């Protein structure tokens, strides 16, 4: 019953998302497209950090891998951007596999630091390999379509996000999701009941990196200018904040967090540098008063009626 309600709710939201931009101007459409990119990033990072407990700081780097791989192939080899996005996704998956394998014996802060180092190394390479990446100037890349159309990009990003979220939803609710959570809760105990912990951890890294690469590839071809902003720690921490504020370890939390924070950012942009301060305050307040994020808040205060119905 609860599942049916959830499906109906999701369908209604999706229908709304399909119709909504038709009534909006170019600027709100742009904000929604960026929000969809962040929804993909936060949701996939949530699978890695919120479900297997591997707090990676290399997720934005994987988006950068997707964007730069596809962009460079398009610019240097004239490859079709769609093919480029696929290759970028595969390359991010490969690097995710490597990074996951490298971090296998690590947990907690050590894993975070290793992925942080990976992210920084990549950033330095991109900034300095000017001939290939155009450094901080940014790499101008072709779009996904011959003619630029905001609304088409919106639907492409929406379709991509739905695809990614559907895969994530399926993974979380399958046996794999149970194994992920078992690993996060207690690796030793998980092993003792037959969970192939090493495989589960590397798989999570590979899949989520592929998703970040995919999102990053599309995002790059939407922006038409790929800069080291994508594989930056700024973006990484934004994704982290969205996940935590939305609700880590839940399916809908990161999606809500991505839209809420990205739209909020537009409103507080007028404060210039101070908008980061507002961001920090929001994160602080949420961490103090709603440790399970916005989704946790909703679960706590939703009408008693529905909670009893679940029982």
């Amino acid at each position, binding site marked *: 019953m609860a599942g049916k309600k959830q499906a109906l709710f999701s369908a209604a939201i999706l229908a709304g998302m399909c119709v909504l931009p038709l009534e909006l101007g170019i600027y709100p459409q742009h904000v929604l497209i960026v929000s969809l990119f962040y929804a993909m990033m936060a949701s996939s990072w949530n699978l890695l950090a919120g479900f297997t407990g591997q707090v990676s700081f290399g997720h934005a780097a994987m988006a950068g891998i997707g964007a730069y791989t596809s962009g460079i192939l398009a610019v240097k080899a004239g490859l079709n951007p769609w093919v480029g996005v696929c290759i970028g996704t595969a390359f991010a998956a490969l690097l995710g596999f490597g990074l996951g394998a490298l971090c296998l014996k690590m947990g907690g802060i050590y894993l975070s630091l290793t992925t942080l180092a990976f992210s920084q190394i990549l950033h330095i390479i991109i900034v300095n390999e000017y001939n290939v990446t155009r450094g901080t100037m940014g790499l101008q890349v072709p779009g996904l379509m011959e003619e630029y159309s905001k609304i088409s990009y919106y639907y492409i990003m929406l379709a991509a996000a739905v695809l990614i979220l559907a895969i994530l939803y399926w993974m979380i609710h399958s*046996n794999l999701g149970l194994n992920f959570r078992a690993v996060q*809760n*207690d690796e*030793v105990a*998980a092993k*003792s*009941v*037959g969970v*192939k912990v090493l495989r589960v951890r590397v798989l999570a890294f590979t899949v989520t990196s592929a998703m970040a690469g995919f999102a990053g590839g599309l995002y790059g071809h939407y922006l038409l200018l790929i800069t080291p902003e994508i594989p930056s720690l700024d973006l990484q921490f934004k994704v982290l904040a969205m996940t935590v504020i939305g609700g880590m*370890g839940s399916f809908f939390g990161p999606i809500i967090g991505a839209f809420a924070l990205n739209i909020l950012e537009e409103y507080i942009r007028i404060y210039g540098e101070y908008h980061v301060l507002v961001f920090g305050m929001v994160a602080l307040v949420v961490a103090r008063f709603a440790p399970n994020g916005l989704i946790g808040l909703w679960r706590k205060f939703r009408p008693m009626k529905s909670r009893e119905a679940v029982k």
Partner: protein
Amino acid sequence: MAKIPTDEVAGGREIDKEESVALLEGHKVSKSFGGVQALSQVDFAVEKGTIVGLIGPNGAGKTTLFNAVAGALKPTSGRVVFDEADITGFPANAVCRLGIARTFQVTRPFAAMTCIENVMVAVINRHPEKPRPLIESSAREKLSLVGLAEMGGVEARHLNVIQKKRLELARALATEPKLLMLDEVLGGLNTQEIYQAVAFIRRLRDELGLTVLWIEHVMGAIMPAAERLIVLDQGQVLMVGTPNEVVRDARVIQAYLGE
């Protein structure tokens, strides 16, 4: 101690020495941590269908031996043979798949998961192909077996210590083991509860055809429960025998009580 009817209970199931087959065997199992020799040259055997107690004073190496069998630790040398296959140094998940389940001295439930999910993790790794409703019902069955039927939807971190031990037992049983290894499951129980628990483990053994290797600190509990005892002291096998033989042995008394 003398009042425990050891003979009656243990005598109820006489092991025929000729027919008994060892399900688990250790050959000269050793484990050292740096300079500390936790286990040295331990030989032991656990016959199919028996309940074998593993006892010994603190620091004797009981849990180390457990971990060496269950794959949580790699023995430094020696061999572990289970069901006629050499499993020395196998990772814990592989050991589990072969049919060895264990509980932990300090319980390790999946704290942020519900009780039913805790058990489901064990079921899906035994039967990955099973459809979800069957997985749930078989997990529910294991929960009610240990008396946690009502707690299915409760997160494991909300359970008390005894309930956590029961949950671990349900989880271990859900892996459908041939050999069940219990690490001090009776800690924190009163006398009445100990007798119930012992009867329960014996019933499990009989009904599910299990073999049980059982570490226990509560001597009064393991005496009537086990058919055979392996006594460890300072990383070595001090003696093996029936509970009656063990309590009368001078070396055992000395190991426990000192000179």
